[in-house]
Protein backbone atom coordinates (compact mmCIF):
# COMPACT_ATOMS: atom_id res chain seq x y z
CA UNK A 1 0.00 0.00 0.00
CA UNK A 2 1.50 3.29 -1.04
CA UNK A 3 1.80 6.42 1.03
CA UNK A 4 -0.33 9.28 -0.27
CA UNK A 5 0.61 12.02 2.16
CA UNK A 6 3.88 12.12 4.02
CA UNK A 7 4.96 14.99 6.23
CA UNK A 8 8.54 14.88 7.41
CA UNK A 9 9.46 17.29 10.20
CA UNK A 10 7.30 19.89 8.50
CA UNK A 11 7.95 23.28 10.05
CA UNK A 12 6.44 26.59 9.08
CA UNK A 13 6.98 29.98 10.62
CA UNK A 14 5.26 33.15 9.53
CA UNK A 15 8.01 35.58 10.32
CA UNK A 16 8.58 34.78 13.96
CA UNK A 17 5.11 33.47 14.67
CA UNK A 18 4.61 29.76 14.77
CA UNK A 19 2.63 27.86 12.17
CA UNK A 20 3.64 24.25 12.74
CA UNK A 21 6.76 22.65 14.15
CA UNK A 22 8.28 19.29 13.29
CA UNK A 23 5.03 17.81 12.06
CA UNK A 24 5.53 14.23 10.93
CA UNK A 25 2.83 11.82 9.82
CA UNK A 26 1.92 9.45 7.04
CA UNK A 27 -1.37 8.73 5.37
CA UNK A 28 -1.51 5.45 3.45
CA UNK A 29 -3.71 5.03 0.43
CA UNK A 30 -7.39 4.60 1.20
CA UNK A 31 -7.25 5.92 4.72
CA UNK A 32 -9.47 8.63 6.10
CA UNK A 33 -7.09 10.62 8.21
CA UNK A 34 -8.31 13.17 10.73
CA UNK A 35 -6.31 16.19 11.76
CA UNK A 36 -7.85 17.22 15.02
CA UNK A 37 -7.06 20.26 17.07
CA UNK A 38 -8.33 23.58 18.33
CA UNK A 39 -8.33 26.65 16.11
CA UNK A 40 -4.84 28.03 15.67
CA UNK A 41 -3.19 24.66 16.23
CA UNK A 42 -1.70 24.58 12.73
CA UNK A 43 -4.23 22.49 10.82
CA UNK A 44 -4.76 24.97 8.03
CA UNK A 45 -1.03 25.71 7.83
CA UNK A 46 -0.36 22.03 7.19
CA UNK A 47 -3.06 21.87 4.54
CA UNK A 48 -1.79 24.99 2.80
CA UNK A 49 1.68 23.52 2.43
CA UNK A 50 0.11 20.40 0.90
CA UNK A 51 -1.41 22.56 -1.85
CA UNK A 52 1.73 24.69 -2.27
CA UNK A 53 -0.03 27.87 -1.17
CA UNK A 54 2.76 28.30 1.35
CA UNK A 55 6.24 26.82 1.48
CA UNK A 56 7.76 25.06 4.49
CA UNK A 57 10.39 26.85 6.54
CA UNK A 58 12.04 23.45 6.92
CA UNK A 59 11.04 19.85 6.51
CA UNK A 60 8.74 18.77 3.75
CA UNK A 61 5.44 17.30 2.79
CA UNK A 62 5.08 14.89 -0.12
CA UNK A 63 1.82 14.13 -1.90
CA UNK A 64 1.74 10.95 -3.97
CA UNK A 65 5.49 10.98 -3.32
CA UNK A 66 5.76 14.29 -5.19
CA UNK A 67 6.83 17.73 -4.07
CA UNK A 68 3.78 20.03 -4.16
CA UNK A 69 5.94 22.86 -5.43
CA UNK A 70 8.06 21.17 -8.10
CA UNK A 71 5.25 18.92 -9.29
CA UNK A 72 2.32 21.12 -8.33
CA UNK A 73 0.27 20.53 -11.44
CA UNK A 74 0.61 16.75 -11.24
CA UNK A 75 -0.27 16.81 -7.57
CA UNK A 76 -3.25 19.13 -7.84
CA UNK A 77 -4.73 17.24 -10.79
CA UNK A 78 -5.41 14.41 -8.37
CA UNK A 79 -6.43 16.45 -5.33
CA UNK A 80 -9.84 17.78 -4.37
CA UNK A 81 -9.67 20.66 -1.92
CA UNK A 82 -12.21 22.30 0.33
CA UNK A 83 -10.80 25.39 2.05
CA UNK A 84 -11.64 26.23 5.63
CA UNK A 85 -12.58 29.73 4.60
CA UNK A 86 -14.48 29.16 1.41
CA UNK A 87 -14.85 32.16 -0.90
CA UNK A 88 -16.49 31.70 -4.31
CA UNK A 89 -17.02 34.19 -7.10
CA UNK A 90 -20.25 35.84 -5.91
CA UNK A 91 -21.47 37.03 -9.30
CA UNK A 92 -21.45 33.62 -10.95
CA UNK A 93 -24.23 31.09 -10.65
CA UNK A 94 -23.39 27.71 -9.20
CA UNK A 95 -23.32 26.16 -12.64
CA UNK A 96 -21.11 28.91 -14.12
CA UNK A 97 -18.71 28.52 -11.25
CA UNK A 98 -18.51 24.76 -11.48
CA UNK A 99 -18.20 24.79 -15.28
CA UNK A 100 -15.31 27.24 -14.99
CA UNK A 101 -13.56 25.02 -12.49
CA UNK A 102 -14.39 21.90 -14.46
CA UNK A 103 -12.66 23.44 -17.48
CA UNK A 104 -9.65 24.42 -15.37
CA UNK A 105 -9.43 20.88 -14.05
CA UNK A 106 -10.40 18.87 -17.07
CA UNK A 107 -11.79 15.37 -16.87
CA UNK A 108 -14.98 16.28 -15.03
CA UNK A 109 -18.08 14.30 -15.92
CA UNK A 110 -20.88 16.85 -15.77
CA UNK A 111 -23.62 14.32 -14.94
CA UNK A 112 -21.66 13.52 -11.78
CA UNK A 113 -21.63 17.22 -10.86
CA UNK A 114 -25.39 17.29 -11.26
CA UNK A 115 -25.74 14.14 -9.21
CA UNK A 116 -23.69 15.65 -6.39
CA UNK A 117 -25.73 18.84 -6.48
CA UNK A 118 -28.94 16.87 -6.42
CA UNK A 119 -27.90 14.78 -3.47
CA UNK A 120 -26.84 17.85 -1.55
CA UNK A 121 -30.10 19.63 -2.53
CA UNK A 122 -28.09 22.43 -4.14
CA UNK A 123 -29.68 24.66 -6.78
CA UNK A 124 -26.98 25.39 -9.37
CA UNK A 125 -29.04 27.99 -11.21
CA UNK A 126 -28.85 30.56 -8.42
CA UNK A 127 -26.17 33.23 -8.21
CA UNK A 128 -23.64 32.36 -5.56
CA UNK A 129 -24.15 35.69 -3.79
CA UNK A 130 -27.74 34.64 -3.03
CA UNK A 131 -26.73 31.32 -1.46
CA UNK A 132 -26.81 30.74 2.28
CA UNK A 133 -23.62 29.84 4.09
CA UNK A 134 -24.62 26.18 4.11
CA UNK A 135 -25.34 26.19 0.38
CA UNK A 136 -22.00 27.82 -0.35
CA UNK A 137 -20.37 25.07 1.67
CA UNK A 138 -22.19 22.55 -0.53
CA UNK A 139 -20.74 24.30 -3.58
CA UNK A 140 -17.33 23.86 -2.01
CA UNK A 141 -17.98 20.16 -1.51
CA UNK A 142 -19.17 19.67 -5.08
CA UNK A 143 -16.08 21.33 -6.55
CA UNK A 144 -13.87 19.24 -4.28
CA UNK A 145 -15.53 15.93 -5.20
CA UNK A 146 -16.50 16.54 -8.84
CA UNK A 147 -13.35 15.30 -10.55
CA UNK A 148 -13.19 12.15 -8.47
CA UNK A 149 -9.78 12.95 -6.98
CA UNK A 150 -7.45 10.37 -5.48
CA UNK A 151 -6.91 12.57 -2.45
CA UNK A 152 -9.50 14.76 -0.78
CA UNK A 153 -8.15 17.54 1.42
CA UNK A 154 -11.02 18.91 3.45
CA UNK A 155 -10.54 21.75 5.91
CA UNK A 156 -13.41 21.70 8.40
CA UNK A 157 -15.82 20.22 5.84
CA UNK A 158 -19.09 20.24 7.77
CA UNK A 159 -19.03 23.79 9.09
CA UNK A 160 -22.27 25.47 8.17
CA UNK A 161 -24.00 22.28 7.07
CA UNK A 162 -27.23 21.39 8.80
CA UNK A 163 -27.35 17.94 10.46
CA UNK A 164 -29.18 16.34 7.55
CA UNK A 165 -26.59 17.55 5.06
CA UNK A 166 -23.82 16.44 7.39
CA UNK A 167 -25.27 12.94 7.05
CA UNK A 168 -25.28 13.28 3.26
CA UNK A 169 -21.66 14.42 3.43
CA UNK A 170 -20.76 11.41 5.57
CA UNK A 171 -22.48 9.17 3.04
CA UNK A 172 -20.47 10.73 0.20
CA UNK A 173 -17.32 10.26 2.21
CA UNK A 174 -18.18 6.63 2.85
CA UNK A 175 -18.60 6.07 -0.89
CA UNK A 176 -15.21 7.62 -1.49
CA UNK A 177 -13.77 5.35 1.17
CA UNK A 178 -15.18 2.37 -0.69
CA UNK A 179 -13.63 3.65 -3.92
CA UNK A 180 -10.26 3.76 -2.18
CA UNK A 181 -9.98 7.54 -2.07
CA UNK A 182 -7.60 8.88 0.54
CA UNK A 183 -9.01 11.63 2.72
CA UNK A 184 -7.23 14.21 4.83
CA UNK A 185 -9.80 15.93 6.98
CA UNK A 186 -9.23 18.63 9.54
CA UNK A 187 -11.65 19.27 12.33
CA UNK A 188 -11.94 20.73 15.77
CA UNK A 189 -14.93 18.55 16.60
CA UNK A 190 -14.33 15.08 17.97
CA UNK A 191 -17.64 13.45 17.00
CA UNK A 192 -17.03 14.30 13.35
CA UNK A 193 -13.58 12.77 13.37
CA UNK A 194 -14.91 9.79 15.25
CA UNK A 195 -17.68 9.32 12.70
CA UNK A 196 -15.50 9.66 9.62
CA UNK A 197 -11.87 8.82 10.32
CA UNK A 198 -9.81 5.68 10.58
CA UNK A 199 -6.88 7.37 12.15
CA UNK A 200 -6.33 10.72 13.72
CA UNK A 201 -3.50 13.08 14.54
CA UNK A 202 -4.08 15.41 17.43
CA UNK A 203 -2.38 18.74 16.97
CA UNK A 204 -1.86 21.36 19.57
CA UNK A 205 0.11 24.58 19.38
CA UNK A 206 1.74 23.61 16.11
CA UNK A 207 2.87 20.16 17.13
CA UNK A 208 1.45 16.70 16.73
CA UNK A 209 0.64 15.38 20.15
CA UNK A 210 -0.24 11.91 19.04
CA UNK A 211 -1.24 9.89 16.03
CA UNK A 212 -3.58 7.06 16.86
CA UNK A 213 -6.37 4.90 15.54
CA UNK A 214 -9.76 6.18 16.53
CA UNK A 215 -10.26 3.16 18.79
CA UNK A 216 -7.01 3.78 20.66
CA UNK A 217 -7.88 7.41 21.05
CA UNK A 218 -11.22 6.66 22.59
CA UNK A 219 -9.62 4.16 24.90
CA UNK A 220 -7.42 6.91 26.25
CA UNK A 221 -10.13 9.49 26.45
CA UNK A 222 -11.32 10.85 29.73
CA UNK A 223 -15.01 10.28 30.21
CA UNK A 224 -16.95 12.12 32.78
CA UNK A 225 -19.46 9.99 34.58
CA UNK A 226 -22.12 10.96 37.08
CA UNK A 227 -23.47 8.35 39.45
CA UNK A 228 -26.53 9.04 41.56
CA UNK A 229 -26.95 6.78 44.61
CA UNK A 230 -29.88 6.30 46.96
CA UNK A 231 -27.74 7.40 49.87
CA UNK A 232 -24.53 9.34 50.53
CA UNK A 233 -22.12 8.81 47.63
CA UNK A 234 -19.48 6.21 48.53
CA UNK A 235 -16.55 8.13 47.14
CA UNK A 236 -13.92 6.12 49.01
CA UNK A 237 -14.81 2.95 47.08
CA UNK A 238 -13.88 4.64 43.80
CA UNK A 239 -10.83 6.64 44.81
CA UNK A 240 -8.53 3.65 44.69
CA UNK A 241 -9.52 2.43 41.20
CA UNK A 242 -6.66 2.73 38.72
CA UNK A 243 -8.83 4.09 35.90
CA UNK A 244 -10.35 6.83 38.02
CA UNK A 245 -8.61 10.16 37.74
CA UNK A 246 -10.91 12.39 39.72
CA UNK A 247 -13.64 11.88 42.28
CA UNK A 248 -15.98 14.57 43.42
CA UNK A 249 -18.89 13.87 45.76
CA UNK A 250 -21.77 16.13 46.58
CA UNK A 251 -24.51 14.52 48.61
CA UNK A 252 -25.93 11.54 46.75
CA UNK A 253 -24.06 12.38 43.58
CA UNK A 254 -20.63 11.34 42.55
CA UNK A 255 -18.77 12.87 39.61
CA UNK A 256 -15.99 10.76 38.18
CA UNK A 257 -13.37 11.34 35.58
CA UNK A 258 -12.42 7.99 34.10
CA UNK A 259 -9.69 7.11 31.65
CA UNK A 260 -10.32 4.19 29.31
CA UNK A 261 -12.80 1.40 29.95
CA UNK A 262 -15.56 1.95 32.47
CA UNK A 263 -15.59 -1.68 33.57
CA UNK A 264 -14.03 -1.31 37.03
CA UNK A 265 -16.19 1.70 37.82
CA UNK A 266 -19.40 -0.06 36.82
CA UNK A 267 -18.53 -3.19 38.82
CA UNK A 268 -17.73 -1.09 41.86
CA UNK A 269 -20.92 0.89 41.48
CA UNK A 270 -22.90 -2.36 41.27
CA UNK A 271 -22.15 -2.98 44.95
CA UNK A 272 -24.32 0.00 45.81
CA UNK A 273 -27.82 1.04 44.88
CA UNK A 274 -27.53 3.19 41.78
CA UNK A 275 -30.41 5.50 40.95
CA UNK A 276 -29.06 7.00 37.77
CA UNK A 277 -25.95 7.00 35.56
CA UNK A 278 -25.00 9.76 33.18
CA UNK A 279 -22.04 9.57 30.87
CA UNK A 280 -20.72 12.09 28.42
CA UNK A 281 -18.93 11.39 25.18
CA UNK A 282 -15.42 12.69 25.53
CA UNK A 283 -15.00 16.14 24.06
CA UNK A 284 -11.84 17.40 22.51
CA UNK A 285 -10.73 18.89 25.79
CA UNK A 286 -11.11 15.52 27.49
CA UNK A 287 -9.08 13.86 24.77
CA UNK A 288 -6.31 16.36 25.35
CA UNK A 289 -6.55 15.86 29.07
CA UNK A 290 -6.35 12.15 28.49
CA UNK A 291 -3.02 12.64 26.76
CA UNK A 292 -1.51 15.36 28.85
CA UNK A 293 -2.80 14.29 32.24
CA UNK A 294 -4.88 16.55 34.38
CA UNK A 295 -1.87 18.59 35.46
CA UNK A 296 -0.95 19.52 31.90
CA UNK A 297 -1.97 22.94 30.74
CA UNK A 298 -5.23 22.62 28.89
CA UNK A 299 -5.32 24.09 25.41
CA UNK A 300 -6.38 27.70 25.45
CA UNK A 301 -9.26 27.21 23.09
CA UNK A 302 -11.21 24.02 22.69
CA UNK A 303 -14.64 23.04 21.65
CA UNK A 304 -16.28 20.69 23.99
CA UNK A 305 -18.95 18.59 22.42
CA UNK A 306 -20.96 16.87 25.04
CA UNK A 307 -23.37 14.27 23.78
CA UNK A 308 -25.42 12.38 26.30
Amino acid at each position, binding site marked *: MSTIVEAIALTKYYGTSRGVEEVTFEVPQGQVFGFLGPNGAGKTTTIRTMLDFIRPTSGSVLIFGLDPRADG*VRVRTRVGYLPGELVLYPRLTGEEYLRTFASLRGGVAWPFVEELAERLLLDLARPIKDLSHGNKQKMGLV*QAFMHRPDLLVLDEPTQGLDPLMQQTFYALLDEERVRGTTVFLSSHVMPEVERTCDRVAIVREGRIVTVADIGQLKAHALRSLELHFDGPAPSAAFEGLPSVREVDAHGDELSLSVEGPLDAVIKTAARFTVVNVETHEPGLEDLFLGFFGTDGAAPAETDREDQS
Partner: protein
Amino acid sequence: MSGLLAKAVRDERRALVGWGIGVAGAVALYAAFYPSIKESAADLQSYIDALPEAIRNIVGAGGYTTPAGYLEGEFFNTIGPLIMALFAIGAGARSIAGEEEAGTLDLLLSTPVRRRQVLATKALATVGGAVVLAGVAAATIALVGPPFGLSVPVVDVMAACLMLALLGLSFGGVAFAIGAATGRRTLANAVAGGLAVLTFIVNAVAPTVEWLSPLRPFTPFRWYQEPEVLTGGLHVANILVLGGIAGVSYVVAAFAFDRRDLTS
Protein backbone atom coordinates in the same frame (compact mmCIF):
# COMPACT_ATOMS: atom_id res chain seq x y z
CA MET B 1 -5.18 27.79 -20.19
CA SER B 2 -8.18 28.78 -22.33
CA GLY B 3 -10.42 28.36 -19.30
CA LEU B 4 -8.17 30.67 -17.32
CA LEU B 5 -8.10 33.24 -20.08
CA ALA B 6 -11.87 33.13 -20.43
CA LYS B 7 -12.13 33.72 -16.70
CA ALA B 8 -9.60 36.56 -16.74
CA VAL B 9 -11.40 38.26 -19.62
CA ARG B 10 -14.75 37.86 -17.89
CA ASP B 11 -13.32 39.35 -14.69
CA GLU B 12 -12.12 42.36 -16.68
CA ARG B 13 -15.24 42.87 -18.70
CA ARG B 14 -17.32 44.83 -16.21
CA ALA B 15 -14.61 47.34 -15.43
CA LEU B 16 -13.82 47.64 -19.11
CA VAL B 17 -17.39 48.43 -20.09
CA GLY B 18 -17.48 51.19 -17.48
CA TRP B 19 -14.18 52.74 -18.53
CA GLY B 20 -15.09 52.35 -22.21
CA ILE B 21 -18.27 54.36 -21.70
CA GLY B 22 -16.23 56.87 -19.73
CA VAL B 23 -13.58 57.34 -22.38
CA ALA B 24 -16.10 57.50 -25.25
CA GLY B 25 -18.19 59.99 -23.30
CA ALA B 26 -15.19 62.18 -22.52
CA VAL B 27 -14.04 62.22 -26.12
CA ALA B 28 -17.54 62.94 -27.42
CA LEU B 29 -17.94 65.76 -24.91
CA TYR B 30 -14.66 67.38 -25.91
CA ALA B 31 -15.58 67.02 -29.56
CA ALA B 32 -18.93 68.70 -28.94
CA PHE B 33 -17.20 71.62 -27.20
CA TYR B 34 -14.79 72.09 -30.04
CA PRO B 35 -16.90 74.39 -32.31
CA SER B 36 -17.51 76.93 -29.57
CA ILE B 37 -13.93 76.73 -28.32
CA LYS B 38 -12.63 77.21 -31.82
CA GLU B 39 -14.67 80.39 -32.15
CA SER B 40 -13.00 81.93 -29.18
CA ALA B 41 -9.71 80.18 -29.84
CA ALA B 42 -7.77 83.37 -30.24
CA ASP B 43 -8.95 84.76 -26.89
CA LEU B 44 -8.39 81.44 -25.20
CA GLN B 45 -4.94 81.08 -26.65
CA SER B 46 -3.90 84.51 -25.46
CA TYR B 47 -5.31 83.70 -22.02
CA ILE B 48 -3.32 80.46 -21.95
CA ASP B 49 -0.21 82.18 -23.21
CA ALA B 50 -0.51 84.53 -20.24
CA LEU B 51 -0.34 81.64 -17.78
CA PRO B 52 2.97 80.68 -16.18
CA GLU B 53 4.77 78.08 -18.25
CA ALA B 54 4.58 75.40 -15.54
CA ILE B 55 0.79 75.71 -15.31
CA ARG B 56 0.53 75.73 -19.06
CA ASN B 57 2.41 72.46 -19.17
CA ILE B 58 0.18 70.89 -16.57
CA VAL B 59 -3.09 71.83 -18.23
CA GLY B 60 -1.75 70.81 -21.63
CA ALA B 61 -0.41 73.79 -23.46
CA GLY B 62 -1.82 72.81 -26.83
CA GLY B 63 -2.52 75.23 -29.57
CA TYR B 64 -6.29 75.49 -29.43
CA THR B 65 -6.45 76.81 -32.94
CA THR B 66 -5.96 73.41 -34.59
CA PRO B 67 -7.95 70.19 -34.14
CA ALA B 68 -4.75 68.29 -33.33
CA GLY B 69 -3.63 70.85 -30.79
CA TYR B 70 -7.06 70.84 -29.15
CA LEU B 71 -7.22 67.05 -28.95
CA GLU B 72 -3.68 66.86 -27.66
CA GLY B 73 -4.19 69.42 -24.95
CA GLU B 74 -7.66 68.44 -23.86
CA PHE B 75 -7.54 64.69 -24.23
CA PHE B 76 -4.16 63.12 -24.88
CA ASN B 77 -2.20 65.09 -22.33
CA THR B 78 -4.81 65.21 -19.59
CA ILE B 79 -8.00 63.20 -19.32
CA GLY B 80 -6.79 60.40 -21.64
CA PRO B 81 -3.79 59.42 -19.52
CA LEU B 82 -5.88 59.83 -16.39
CA ILE B 83 -8.55 57.39 -17.58
CA MET B 84 -6.06 54.94 -19.04
CA ALA B 85 -3.83 54.96 -15.96
CA LEU B 86 -6.80 54.54 -13.62
CA PHE B 87 -8.07 51.60 -15.65
CA ALA B 88 -4.71 49.87 -15.95
CA ILE B 89 -3.73 50.45 -12.32
CA GLY B 90 -7.09 49.17 -11.13
CA ALA B 91 -6.90 46.12 -13.36
CA GLY B 92 -3.28 45.44 -12.40
CA ALA B 93 -3.93 45.70 -8.69
CA ARG B 94 -7.06 43.58 -8.97
CA SER B 95 -5.37 40.80 -10.95
CA ILE B 96 -3.63 38.94 -8.16
CA ALA B 97 -3.97 41.06 -5.04
CA GLY B 98 -7.69 41.59 -5.61
CA GLU B 99 -8.41 37.87 -5.81
CA GLU B 100 -6.08 37.17 -2.95
CA GLU B 101 -7.71 39.69 -0.65
CA ALA B 102 -11.17 38.51 -1.64
CA GLY B 103 -10.07 34.97 -0.77
CA THR B 104 -10.86 33.41 -4.16
CA LEU B 105 -7.24 32.86 -5.18
CA ASP B 106 -6.87 29.76 -2.99
CA LEU B 107 -9.44 27.72 -4.86
CA LEU B 108 -8.21 28.99 -8.22
CA LEU B 109 -4.68 27.82 -7.41
CA SER B 110 -5.93 24.51 -6.02
CA THR B 111 -6.68 23.50 -9.61
CA PRO B 112 -3.94 22.07 -11.81
CA VAL B 113 -2.75 25.43 -13.10
CA ARG B 114 0.62 27.05 -12.56
CA ARG B 115 0.86 30.34 -10.76
CA ARG B 116 2.60 31.71 -13.84
CA GLN B 117 -0.31 30.70 -16.03
CA VAL B 118 -2.70 32.59 -13.80
CA LEU B 119 -0.35 35.56 -13.86
CA ALA B 120 0.09 35.43 -17.64
CA THR B 121 -3.60 35.24 -18.43
CA LYS B 122 -4.39 38.07 -16.05
CA ALA B 123 -1.64 40.21 -17.56
CA LEU B 124 -2.93 39.38 -21.02
CA ALA B 125 -6.44 40.36 -20.04
CA THR B 126 -5.18 43.71 -18.70
CA VAL B 127 -3.18 44.38 -21.88
CA GLY B 128 -6.21 43.42 -23.93
CA GLY B 129 -8.37 45.73 -21.85
CA ALA B 130 -6.00 48.66 -22.37
CA VAL B 131 -5.91 47.99 -26.12
CA VAL B 132 -9.71 47.84 -26.28
CA LEU B 133 -9.99 51.07 -24.30
CA ALA B 134 -7.47 52.77 -26.60
CA GLY B 135 -9.45 51.42 -29.56
CA VAL B 136 -12.65 52.88 -28.16
CA ALA B 137 -10.91 56.25 -27.77
CA ALA B 138 -9.54 56.10 -31.33
CA ALA B 139 -12.86 55.04 -32.81
CA THR B 140 -14.76 57.74 -30.95
CA ILE B 141 -12.31 60.42 -32.09
CA ALA B 142 -12.49 59.16 -35.69
CA LEU B 143 -16.29 58.93 -35.74
CA VAL B 144 -17.49 61.74 -33.49
CA GLY B 145 -14.74 64.28 -34.24
CA PRO B 146 -15.38 65.14 -37.91
CA PRO B 147 -19.04 66.25 -37.50
CA PHE B 148 -17.76 68.89 -35.05
CA GLY B 149 -14.91 69.91 -37.32
CA LEU B 150 -12.43 67.96 -35.23
CA SER B 151 -10.65 66.13 -38.04
CA VAL B 152 -7.27 64.54 -37.41
CA PRO B 153 -5.58 61.90 -39.60
CA VAL B 154 -6.79 58.49 -38.41
CA VAL B 155 -3.26 57.10 -38.48
CA ASP B 156 -2.12 59.77 -36.05
CA VAL B 157 -5.05 59.05 -33.78
CA MET B 158 -4.28 55.33 -33.78
CA ALA B 159 -0.62 55.97 -33.06
CA ALA B 160 -1.46 58.29 -30.19
CA CYS B 161 -3.97 55.83 -28.75
CA LEU B 162 -1.38 53.06 -28.91
CA MET B 163 0.99 55.24 -26.92
CA LEU B 164 -1.84 56.01 -24.53
CA ALA B 165 -2.37 52.28 -23.94
CA LEU B 166 1.37 51.79 -23.38
CA LEU B 167 1.50 54.70 -20.95
CA GLY B 168 -1.38 53.22 -18.96
CA LEU B 169 0.18 49.77 -19.01
CA SER B 170 3.46 51.10 -17.66
CA PHE B 171 1.63 52.21 -14.50
CA GLY B 172 -0.68 49.18 -14.61
CA GLY B 173 2.43 47.00 -14.69
CA VAL B 174 3.72 48.59 -11.50
CA ALA B 175 0.39 47.94 -9.78
CA PHE B 176 0.37 44.38 -11.13
CA ALA B 177 3.87 43.69 -9.82
CA ILE B 178 3.26 45.17 -6.38
CA GLY B 179 -0.02 43.27 -6.09
CA ALA B 180 1.58 40.01 -7.21
CA ALA B 181 4.55 40.49 -4.88
CA THR B 182 2.63 41.49 -1.77
CA GLY B 183 -0.97 40.40 -2.24
CA ARG B 184 -2.05 43.85 -1.09
CA ARG B 185 -4.39 45.60 -3.46
CA THR B 186 -4.58 48.94 -1.70
CA LEU B 187 -0.80 49.15 -1.57
CA ALA B 188 -0.59 48.35 -5.28
CA ASN B 189 -3.19 50.99 -6.12
CA ALA B 190 -1.62 53.60 -3.88
CA VAL B 191 1.98 53.16 -5.01
CA ALA B 192 1.16 52.99 -8.71
CA GLY B 193 -1.37 55.81 -8.48
CA GLY B 194 1.01 57.96 -6.43
CA LEU B 195 3.75 57.29 -8.93
CA ALA B 196 1.49 58.33 -11.78
CA VAL B 197 0.59 61.63 -10.14
CA LEU B 198 4.17 62.34 -9.09
CA THR B 199 5.71 61.59 -12.47
CA PHE B 200 2.99 63.56 -14.23
CA ILE B 201 3.81 66.64 -12.18
CA VAL B 202 7.57 66.17 -12.49
CA ASN B 203 7.26 65.84 -16.24
CA ALA B 204 5.02 68.88 -16.48
CA VAL B 205 7.09 71.27 -14.39
CA ALA B 206 10.54 69.91 -15.25
CA PRO B 207 10.97 72.27 -18.24
CA THR B 208 10.61 75.27 -15.94
CA VAL B 209 12.09 73.99 -12.69
CA GLU B 210 15.76 73.60 -13.27
CA TRP B 211 16.59 71.10 -10.53
CA LEU B 212 13.80 68.77 -11.70
CA SER B 213 15.01 68.66 -15.29
CA PRO B 214 17.39 65.72 -14.80
CA LEU B 215 14.48 63.67 -13.42
CA ARG B 216 12.32 64.07 -16.46
CA PRO B 217 13.67 61.02 -18.34
CA PHE B 218 12.52 58.92 -15.38
CA THR B 219 8.89 59.82 -15.92
CA PRO B 220 6.84 57.65 -18.31
CA PHE B 221 5.12 60.85 -19.49
CA ARG B 222 8.34 62.12 -21.03
CA TRP B 223 8.37 59.02 -23.23
CA TYR B 224 4.72 59.44 -24.02
CA GLN B 225 4.54 63.06 -25.06
CA GLU B 226 7.86 63.99 -26.56
CA PRO B 227 7.62 64.63 -29.41
CA GLU B 228 3.89 65.45 -29.37
CA VAL B 229 1.94 62.23 -29.08
CA LEU B 230 -0.65 63.09 -31.70
CA THR B 231 1.39 64.94 -34.27
CA GLY B 232 4.90 63.72 -33.56
CA GLY B 233 4.48 60.23 -34.95
CA LEU B 234 5.55 56.93 -33.41
CA HIS B 235 9.05 56.61 -31.99
CA VAL B 236 10.67 53.29 -31.32
CA ALA B 237 12.50 54.55 -28.24
CA ASN B 238 9.24 55.73 -26.69
CA ILE B 239 7.53 52.43 -27.41
CA LEU B 240 10.47 50.51 -25.98
CA VAL B 241 10.67 52.54 -22.78
CA LEU B 242 6.94 52.36 -21.98
CA GLY B 243 6.60 48.75 -23.13
CA GLY B 244 9.80 47.97 -21.25
CA ILE B 245 8.45 49.28 -17.96
CA ALA B 246 5.37 47.08 -18.37
CA GLY B 247 7.51 44.10 -19.42
CA VAL B 248 9.95 44.42 -16.55
CA SER B 249 7.05 44.79 -14.14
CA TYR B 250 5.60 41.55 -15.44
CA VAL B 251 8.88 39.69 -15.00
CA VAL B 252 9.21 41.03 -11.46
CA ALA B 253 5.62 39.97 -10.77
CA ALA B 254 6.21 36.44 -12.08
CA PHE B 255 9.43 36.08 -10.11
CA ALA B 256 7.99 37.37 -6.85
CA PHE B 257 4.63 35.60 -7.10
CA ASP B 258 6.20 32.22 -7.78
CA ARG B 259 8.38 32.47 -4.71
CA ARG B 260 6.13 33.78 -2.02
CA ASP B 261 3.51 32.37 0.32
CA LEU B 262 -0.07 33.24 -0.42
CA THR B 263 -1.67 35.29 2.30
CA SER B 264 -4.73 33.81 3.87
